[in-house]
């Protein structure tokens, strides 16, 4: 066999077919890695990174929206609180207003009632006085007639006497 004579230097002398096969293999491998394997995985890596980035962005967006909603809600709550306290104040003011109104009305009415009563008392008093005056006149006349008797049958004397008597009573009353 030829190989028995092989020396160490033969190892470093490339054979033509070995060169061919080394280059063919190298080109095939390079083409495979350059054209298919790495682009494919690069695509996967990019897509994954994009998806993760998208997820993070989405989460950020959601958080932002949640914060916005919270702020809106808190604003609304604050507004509602302010409004409620305003309504309460208004109601309180109105209530006191109503009370004051009612009081003043009641006072007015009371005064009215008092005034009416006063008036009616006065008018009744006046009426009583007038009717008393009439009756006293009749009574006095009847009494005087009985006392004087026939002496006073004359109409003129009679009327004179009544007039003087009434004027007496009048002056008495006005003097009072």
């Amino acid at each position, binding site marked *: 066999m030829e190989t028995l004579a092989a020396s160490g230097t033969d190892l*470093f002398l490339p*054979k033509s077919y*070995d060169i*061919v*096969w080394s280059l063919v293999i190298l080109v095939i491998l390079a083409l495979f*890695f350059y054209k298919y394997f790495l682009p494919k*995985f690069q695509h996967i890596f990019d897509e994954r990174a994009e998806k993760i980035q998208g997820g993070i962005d989405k989460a950020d967006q959601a958080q932002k929206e949640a914060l916005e909603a919270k702020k809106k809600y808190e604003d609304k709550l604050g507004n509602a609180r302010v409004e409620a306290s305003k309504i309460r104040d208004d109601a309180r003011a109105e209530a006191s207003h109503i009370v004051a109104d009612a009081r003043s009305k009641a006072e007015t009415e009371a005064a009215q009632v008092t005034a009416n009563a006063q008036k009616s008392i006065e008018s009744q008093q006046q009426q009583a006085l007038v009717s008393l005056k009439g009756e006293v006149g009749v009574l006095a006349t009847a009494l005087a007639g009985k006392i004087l008797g026939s002496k006073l049958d004359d109409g003129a004397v009679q009327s004179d006497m009544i007039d003087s008597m009434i004027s007496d009573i009048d002056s008495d009353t006005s003097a009072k």
Partner: protein
Amino acid sequence: MVTGIAGMGFAAVTTLAEASGPDIPSIDDFLPEPALFAGTPFAINRIILVRIIATVLLIAILGVSAHRAKLIPSRWQGAVEWLIEFVQNSIVYEVMGELRGKRYVPMITTIFLSILVFNLCGIIPGFNIAATATITMPLAFALWCFVQYWIAGIREKGLGRFLKDELFPKGIPWPIYILLSPIQLIELLLIRPFSLTIRLFANMISGHLLVALCFAATQWFFIETTTKAQFPLGILTFAGGAFMTVFEMAVAGLQAFIFAILTTAYINMSLPETE
């Protein structure tokens, strides 16, 4: 093709039977006779067959992984992605930075994964020899690296400035250039590609020789020799072979890593100092 391998196996067995000692592996293992298309430029010997099968397997497995790749990775896809990201982040971006490195990620990935798988063939039962165990395969990778760092230097700086920066480094008194510049030129033209080639090639050769030696000795002590007294020695060599196999796994990964990171570093050296 399979009959080719089997035929070679039988040949090995027959030589074994004739031998008076263990079948000590030799450099002949790295210079197998062509089994197919002998005499043409497309002749295929055992190592090239291993290389072709390894390539087909690599492309099939990674191709199917890529084809089935989903947004939410399975365990296997996670492992493949880890490998890609390891090359991208721990090798390319670590040395060059992301901006410059992006362009070289496919190249370094090709180099790293191919060399890793080719190296591992050395300990895969049935292959038992690294697909990188002939000089041309490491040389092909190294020449790719060579072409790339020249292109990078000429594209980024122009040929004149690239050579000036490489051959006459700044901050050195001029008489030193008489010594330094030829060395730099030799480094740029020869040392870089050949150190890459020989480091990988020699590692694969020595790895194969050590593993094969241990197991050949084990075979001898256990089966072929009639003296039972040598049995414990067989246990020792078997343990040694097992250890060397694990060690070769580490070497396969390490050499792929070194090749990839040096390629990246050489290309990076051709680029201007500042962005």
